[in-house]
């Protein structure tokens, strides 16, 4: 477990250090600003799906909080 946490930490550091060379200038954000390019395009649909899969599978969360809130059958 500790190894996996360490690996996750290292990969985040590696990603961060590599990030400084990536990206766009402020005037190149036309595409990124579009609604369909947001990470969550439909909050209700995402919440509905999370709730369905939370009820029927043993995994939850990832995109956001794992949550709780139902005694699902």
């Amino acid at each position, binding site marked *: 477990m500790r190894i996996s946490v360490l690996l996750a930490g290292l990969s985040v550091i590696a990603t961060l250090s590599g990030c400084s060379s990536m990206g766009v200038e402020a005037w190149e954000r036309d595409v990124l600003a579009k609604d369909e390019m947001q990470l969550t395009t439909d909050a209700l649909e995402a919440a509905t799906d999370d709730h369905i899969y939370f009820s029927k599978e043993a995994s939850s969360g990832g995109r956001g909080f794992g949550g709780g809130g139902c*005694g699902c059958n």
Partner: protein
Amino acid sequence: MSNKNKLNITSALAAATCTLLGSGAAEPVQAQEELGWGFNTALLYYGEDDNRVQDLSLSVLGQRTYLDDKFLSLGLTLDTLTGASPNGALPQSVAQTFTQPSGGKTYTTPAGEFPYDDTFRDTRVAISGNWQQPLGRMSLFNVGASASKEYDYLHLGLNAKFSHDFNQRNTTVSAGLAISQDELDPVGGTPTGLTEMISASDDDGEDGEGGRRKGPAESKDIIDVVFGITQVISRNFLVQVNYSYSDSSGYLSDPYKVLTAVDGVTGDVVPVPQLPGIDGPSHLYYYEHRPDSRAKHSIYTQGKYYMDGKVLDLSYRYMTDDWEINSHTIDARLRWPTGDNRYLEPHLRFYSQTAADFYTLSLVDGDALPEYASADYRLGDFDAITAGLKYGWKTGGGNDMSVRLELYRQSGNISSTDLIGNQVGRDNYPDLNAIIFQVGYKFGK
């Protein structure tokens, strides 16, 4: 319909939604600062085959943006659930009778069929509120609360998230914390794990009846932490990676699920003596019992890629926990414009999980009982696939409308070495087929 009429309908819906959300918040407080309310509404039908769970759900999310980037979001969801749910017992070549969770009555499953408890019926109300505001020029702070109530279940939660942009806003790091406290008050009381299913006449829901039922309410606490990084790779490519940890403690069993006790050679159910005047289970069943803590780790990564008007949304999640469940989830969506303000979005999702270490099809009669055991299909080894299609368009009034239809299918994997005697050749995992149909409408702002 004229545009004026459409606008009137939009205003009426906005007003009705504000009333539902319990606020007069549509009234401007600082008119000069507001961009107004936007509403996201959805009507969902979720239906499983074999008369299993059917859910009709209405959701409203009201969002208000302020000029200084402050953001308020209020949500309300109403669910109406009916139908039957597998009770955990195995199909047999004889009819099986079970005591209803609520006690006093029994239900019988015909030979050869999966035992479903068809007595559940529920209404769920969920509310949520979130407030987001900038901290300085490059950071955002978000706090929220959520609550939901079912007949036998109460959830209360709080969450907070901090995010910071740097590298010319090409990189965002975030950290979030959520805590929740859930309370279960099962119909008929909480069964003691791995004790025998009691007869209907014993089952009056009183505390300590026969030593098999105890206090009425149980609780569980959940703490979630999420760390994330979002990186703009290029003008049309964006990637997010999240690590999350979730710790649950308290009562984590399902009070309505049971396990079948079977003969160690034939694999068949074990009859229990039927006493005159006592209505009870026909065979030996045990209430399930799960550990009282669970720790989950997840890595989630999502990419959005724009190519000539089309947007590919691809994500992968790996989850592992101390119940020995590991899962992989791949989700892919492609938004494909089909004209001005219209798009089609095919969706595919693949899911695969291993079984919890205490998951078992049945318990062998006469063997020592394990510390923990569950036959809940959701803790078994299974694969699932979702295939769907969404169609979205802008209405004449400039609002967003969408419909989607998805099919969800779960199929269990049971190793032949786990089968005893006559269980070989029987269908032992309740495969699931469901449809998801959702209509979404966004208006305002």
